[in-house]
């Protein structure tokens, strides 16, 4: 099981991957908005996406955006 984690505090601006999507290591799963910047959230490994957040939600540094397994 891998995870896609927020590298910085921010709000979930856009979920790029959908529930159940197959992704590869490094694929962009979501985009956060922090200080007017679009911060991509990358998949930590290959697998199927299980989203853990909704668009508009505030996440903290290190929070899991999606489990990937």
């Amino acid at each position, binding site marked *: 099981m891998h995870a896609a984690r927020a*590298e910085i505090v921010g709000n979930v601006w856009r979920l790029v991957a959908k529930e159940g999507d197959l992704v590869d290591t490094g694929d962009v799963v979501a985009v956060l908005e*922090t*200080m007017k*910047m679009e911060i991509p959230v990358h998949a930590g490994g290959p697998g199927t996406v299980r989203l853990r957040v909704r668009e508009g939600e505030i996440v903290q540094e290190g929070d899991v955006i999606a489990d990937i397994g």
Partner: protein
Amino acid sequence: MTTINTETATSDHRARLARRRQERFRRVEPRGRREYTARERAEMLVDAGSFVEMSPMRVDSDGKGAGVVIGWGRVDGRGVVIASHDAAVASGAIGAVFAETVQKAQRFAIDKGYPIVYINDSGGARIHDGIHALHGCGGIFALNVKAQRRVPQISLILGPCAGAAAYSPALTDWTIMVREQGQMFLTGPDIVKATTGEDATSEDIGGSQMHTEVSGVAHLEVTNESEAFHATRLLLSYLPSRADGPMPVVAPRRPSPVAAERLPYVVPDRASVVFDMREVIDGVLDAGPRLELMPAHAPSVLTLFGHLDGRPVGVLANQPASRGGVLDAKSSVKAARFIEFCGRFGLPVVTFVDVPGFLPGTVEESRGVITHGAKLLKAYVETTSPLLTVVVRKAYGGAYIAMGSRSLGADYSWAWSGAEIAVMGPGGAVALLHRRALRDADDPEALRDELAAEYRENVARPYVAAEAGVIDDVILPEETRDRLIDALATLGHEGGTDARR
């Protein structure tokens, strides 16, 4: 008869010295993951055949060696002093004689103006030597601090370095660790278990990954001893031998044509989209090797050495590709330390700016972002080496000031034509300045966009900053390299009466 006696005596002397040397230089097979002995490490670090040991016959009271090999050699033809812990003698523990020997190397380096490399592989103070060991360790630390103003100090961590053996590297400029071989901690697993109840391995407490990513105690992680020596030689290649020494200038190399052609297109049109600042650096600096320090720690700023027209320079840059390039407590400390180092050794600092600001929030404030951010301001103000700043995209608020602004003493500051420099970004500024209008508007979103665009054009464009004199000029990306090289040439002129220098 007299002649024969002399000959006998001479051959006796020779045989005795040969025997002594054989005993002293006997190779003791290194234990654990170690690849080489203390003397082999020193020999490998310097140019082939150039290592000369100082006081090789020195012994401790137990009849064994001092526990540390000191000496000097050359790296790319330039003198370097080395102190290499010998883990084969009492696990490299620092006794009174050991400490006295290291201090001899330190004094030589300070007095003669040579960089010193510490090859650390020591379990800490030698318990049998009691208070004498502690006194010796303190003496090493004091000379570490004294050397800071005089010569570069580099620490390699090639084994478990505990207690006193971990403090000395922290007082030096740059620390390089070998993965799964070097560790640094004040107290090892047993004491940690007894005190905090943690079941932690020495890798958990002080491994290279932890120290180069999380704590920032070490600045470079390598995979084996040979790589550590290579990295040390590369690092030394950018540095003068002493604080007032001449810079090691190399043959200039233009940037790779691919990187140079790409330069005007690296920064995305939309200010919110991230990009890799390394592409900007590649398009401006000389082609050839760079050395990035602390690549995995606080990666929203980049700190690296490279060349500009053959001259070594330190580069500090925001890295939008990591955490948007923000400044926070950790990245401020990383940046400040780098600039302070460059200042001490006269290295020009080139700052590339694209910063959204200091990261807000209770987490950062409680980490002391104010104090740490202030270190960055102080480092720029105190640095007397040439400071050249290029705003490639955004520079807002306090972060604009902190990233090498004219007000902090930059010799030259330029902005690319698409840059934005302002007290705050368009979004925040419009919300503040037009609160009432936005509240009463039929379509607040449309009005906000309109006002933001107006603000961007009328307030934030770099021409406003250039007209006000807070930046020197507005330039195109492809003009950057020539401007920097020309500036370095004028700043290197000896005739000035600049009070800062």
